[in-house]
């Protein structure tokens, strides 16, 4: 019995690993294309974008096809002026990790849009985070101002119960999809709290289209 079970388990492990290895390059390429499309969606009114890696030395221009690490996408309008930045955020949702891309505008210091990159939330309930127009309206100008010391957000981004939103840094949850809505609030807060203070002194580098 043990031999059969071990044999079946090993065979299945082998098959899964082989498929994983075989499909990995295609999946990464697909994900890159999806991010590219998403950048145009979350920063309104841009015609071009460039990817930068943010590390201890600051921002470096990278080729997004083979870049790793924390990436920031800068979006430019027709005149080559910086319109906004976009970055990925992720947190655990109800089913699995939800990955989103959000746009940030330095002029209003607010989040200008989000789009779902990956989610397996419950169809009809949790998956509304990507489609419900009322929920997405939270992110047309979500307050993400930094405090005076530029070390953290002035007001942490939080998800509040449906219909209880009073402040511009609050997210109005979808009723029936509280866990998924909270995950979005958490990932936006985590990502902006770490990313924006690090970006604060460095936006000049992004100002003009490279």
């Amino acid at each position, binding site marked *: *019995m043990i031999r*059969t*079970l071990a*044999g*079946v*388990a090993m*065979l*299945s492990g082998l*098959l*899964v690993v082989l*498929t*994983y290895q075989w*499909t990995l390059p*295609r*999946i990464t390429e*697909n*994900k890159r*294309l*999806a991010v590219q499309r998403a950048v145009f969606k979350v920063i309104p009114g841009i015609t071009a974008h460039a990817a930068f890696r943010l590390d201890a030395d600051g921002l470096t221009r990278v080729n997004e096809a083979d870049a790793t690490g924390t990436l920031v996408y800068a979006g430019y309008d027709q005149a080559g002026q910086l319109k906004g930045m976009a970055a990925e955020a992720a947190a655990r949702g109800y*089913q699995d990790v939800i990955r989103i891309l959000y746009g940030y505008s330095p002029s209003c210091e607010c989040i200008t849009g989000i789009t*779902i990159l*990956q*989610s*397996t*939330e*419950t*169809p*009809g309930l949790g*998956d509304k985070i990507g489609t419900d127009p009322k929920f997405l309206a939270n992110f047309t100008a979500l307050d993400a101002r930094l405090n005076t010391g530029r070390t953290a957000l002035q007001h942490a981004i939080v998800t509040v119960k449906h219909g209880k939103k009073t402040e511009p840094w609050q997210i109005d949850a979808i009723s029936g999809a509280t866990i998924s809505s909270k995950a979005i609030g958490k990932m936006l807060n985590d990502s902006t709290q770490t990313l924006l203070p690090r970006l604060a002194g460095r936006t000049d580098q992004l100002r003009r289209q490279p």
Partner: protein
Amino acid sequence: MAADPKPAQPITMDTFLDGVWRENPVFVMLLGMCPVLAVTNSVANAIAMGLATTFVLLCSSALVSLLRNAIPKQVRIATYIVIIATFVTIVDYVIQAISLDLYNALGAFIQLIVVNCIILGRAEAYASRHRMTASLVNSLGMGAGFSLALLCLGSVRELLGNGTLLGFAVFGERFQPWSIMILPPGGFFVLGAWLLLFAWLKERKARAAQKGERIHGT
């Protein structure tokens, strides 16, 4: 190794057609209702789901049938689930490699193929008792029947709910789509209508047979 409980039956057209018509998993056995209702809001989703399920069904039936004499009876269900889950994971990766949009459209239902009772049912009721070729033909029929049923629902729902078929507009500009058809309630309405049609066909056939008997009987 124990011999097969039954002598090998010849593979006939019925081995295949059972799944498509007489034992259609959706319209006759009412199995696997979860994906049937959930992902049939467009023809493309229905086809993708049908193909994915058929692939898992074929591969797991083949493997179960191949190992049928080696799998101990006490742990057979666990073994079947491991085998099915393997192929579902493979399908999951392959769909991600083909198109992320399709992957997102099918959502959690790809992973849920693991618990689709058509597949476990085939493994338990057929593949574990028959030779590999017979199991393959039978599960191909079941897969075809399942895909056909998904297609029946998907085409009606997309046509009425969106006015399109595979994304191509069928009706003119003035068509007002019945949005409810692509929403969850539409799935129940359309499934109900198809079941009604099949029940009516069956009843009519039975009545015709009865009538025939009476005529021949006199």
